[in-house]
């Protein structure tokens, strides 16, 4: 008797939980149909909730709720899982290299019709990152990472080297530094930062992926990228550049202690330098990346992200409206700079940056220089399996550095791994 009563109680409990589950789902939907539109927004930018609060105050009919997420590759995986479960947020922050995988999974919507008005706010290079070279628009650029050369002004003077204008000059300077002081490197080659290498390849004119119609073309080992790989391969082989892994305590110490004289990095570098190399304050400066041919001025992107509208969102128009405001409205972009500490992708936003970062007090025109460089950054189309290509890059180049073997061969193996994975996933490949 008693066991029966217990099981009856249990089944009531379970049924109750199910009903509660269903009813809470229904509650979520009712206000969306009648009252103001509710949008959820996944982002890892700091203080985005404060910026959304400004929007909410001015737009009582569209309420944006920010859920702060962790950034990185896992954020992309989490969004794709949520999209699969039909549980995706309306708006999602997507790193540029992750956006194509969202598009391939049909997790984000084409918002071209809703954002055409703000096209002029962005440079062509940045815009190509959200169109993937197609006619559609899969998001609005939020922040960008144009690459530049960070260098130690004081130590350049000490070793008697000039800021390299071309990569040839860079190589010569690297050898000079090694000849003068065995404990110091001009710069390093990173096997851990495929995004960094992708940025340098963009500068050289590399086109790793391209899409025509439905067919993808993979060009990771194209001529331009090969040139970049061979250049660094040569320097690494003769020991002219540092090949230790960055982002380690040893690397931080080298950066901090003046053992690394340059760092080819992106516009977000000041944040890293100020936390990882605090002793270098006032000693670093920026210059454009060395060029492949004298007289050129090109750069690439390393990092940066866009905001996309998920395909499952019931309020695409409202979401696009918020997006346009967030990334192009003068007040919103100003908040993005001040609260979220980003380097805005919008051209008008870049002009709002006037006071150089504290760390770069020695270079008062820091932002003016950065903006000039940002305008020279070349575009790039990322493919749907960047994570595979990046993983292969780390493996292949790690091995190449250890065995002092050819970087061009390593590049070919990255290309092969990427193509093989795309074939396996059922993408159509051209030629």
């Amino acid at each position: 008797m008693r066991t029966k009563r217990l099981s009856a109680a249990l089944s009531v409990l379970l049924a109750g939980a199910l009903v509660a589950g269903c009813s809470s789902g229904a509650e979520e939907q009712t206000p969306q149909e009648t009252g103001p539109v509710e949008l959820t927004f996944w982002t890892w930018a700091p203080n985005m909730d404060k910026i959304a609060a400004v929007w909410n105050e001015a737009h009582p009919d569209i309420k944006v709720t920010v859920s702060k997420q962790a950034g990185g590759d896992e954020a992309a995986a989490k969004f794709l899982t949520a999209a699969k479960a039909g549980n995706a947020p309306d708006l999602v922050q997507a790193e540029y290299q992750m956006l194509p995988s969202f598009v391939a999974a049909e997790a984000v919507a084409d918002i071209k019709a809703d954002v055409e008005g703000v096209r002029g706010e962005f440079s062509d290079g940045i815009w190509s990152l959200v169109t993937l070279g197609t006619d559609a628009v899969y998001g609005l650029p939020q922040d960008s990472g144009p690459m530049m050369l960070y260098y130690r002004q004081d130590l350049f003077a000490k070793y008697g080297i000039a800021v390299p204008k071309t990569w040839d000059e860079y190589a010569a300077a690297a050898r000079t530094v090694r000849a003068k002081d065995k404990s110091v490197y001009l710069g390093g080659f990173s096997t851990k930062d495929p995004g960094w290498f992708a940025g340098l390849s963009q500068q050289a004119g590399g086109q790793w992926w391209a899409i025509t119609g439905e067919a993808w073309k993979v060009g990771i080992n194209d001529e331009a990228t090969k040139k970049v790989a061979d250049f660094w391969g040569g320097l690494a082989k003769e020991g002219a550049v540092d090949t230790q892994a960055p982002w380690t305590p040893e690397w931080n110490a080298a950066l901090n202690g003046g053992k690394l004289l340059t760092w080819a990095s992106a516009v977000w570098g000041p944040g890293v330098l100020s936390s990882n190399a605090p002793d270098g304050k006032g000693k670093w400066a920026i210059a454009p990346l060395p060029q492949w041919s004298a007289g050129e001025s090109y750069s690439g992107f390393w990092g940066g992200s866009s905001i996309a509208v998920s395909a499952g969102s019931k309020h695409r128009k409202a979401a696009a409206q918020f997006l346009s405001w967030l990334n192009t409205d003068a007040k919103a972009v100003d908040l993005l700079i001040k609260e979220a500490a980003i380097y805005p992708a919008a051209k008008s936003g870049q002009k709002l940056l006037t006071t150089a970062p504290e760390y770069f007090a020695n270079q008062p025109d820091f932002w003016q220089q950065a903006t000039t460089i940002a305008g020279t950054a070349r575009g790039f189309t990322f493919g749907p399996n960047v994570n595979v290509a990046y993983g292969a890059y780390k493996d292949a180049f790690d091995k190449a550095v250890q065995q002092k073997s050819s970087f061009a061969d390593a590049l070919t193996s990255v290309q092969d791994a990427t193509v093989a994975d795309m074939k396996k996933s059922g993408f159509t490949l051209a030629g």
Partner: protein
Amino acid sequence: MTAIAEKPRTSVAAEKSRPRGVRRGLGLAPTAVLLLGALYCLLPVCWVLAASTKTRGELFTSNAFAPGTGLLDNIADLSAYRDGIFWQWMANTALYAGVGALLSTAVSVLAGYALAKFRFFGRDTIFTVLIGGILVPAVVLAVPQYLLLAKAGLANTYWAVLLPSILHPYSIYLARIYAAAAIPDALLEAGRIDGAGEHRLLRVVALPLMAPGMVTIFLFQFVAIWNNFLLPFIMLADDERFPLTVGLYTLLATGANQPALYNLVITGALLSIIPLIALFLTMQRYWRTDLSGGSVKS
């Protein structure tokens, strides 16, 4: 993961029969191995302890085990981060681990007791399936569980983390083994002859005897949920509901524009292990009862 090490119970008789010299010789090697193991486990803790006292500047520049000067500043910064959300995460973690481990212990003990002491149709099948369940890592289940709970409309709620933690095959297995060993059939028989119903037997005879086992299961589950990362990471979207592990991870993976807040993460990690240590120190004494409890003459 903190490992629960039970003191090996050496039998008195065996010790007496061994000649003295031999015992010493054998004792040295295990002690050395254990000391090495303790060093291996404690060294990272020492590092966290030292690193959490360092300011951002000191963290990567000073000696790894030298104390710094910024502990109080770090704690203040961490408490100020996003209006003190760290303490919200701490409360969430305590809720997930406390309630989850309690429910899980209750389910495991009931199931284990039934599997050990009752004969019913399909008992062995159920047990075999459970053993199979132990072999499936929880990590593999996280995504299917997410899809399931999303369908039930429970994703991104406290239930999303609590429900999957309740059923834990290994704890049931442990409870069954413990019940089989700690509750003599004779005791249950005697109770039945005296006219006690099954519920009363469970309450008065079985549960007190299983208490040390319950503490073990509770602690196991508490630590497992406290340290769990993937399940809450997938289940929860709203950072007001994050546990410490996922919350601290958002400080680490801040995106490229922001420096990772290493010093806050390390201080947060230190603060997050303090409740675990306190719990272990207070619960430790319950383990001792298993020597005296349940002794019947057989």
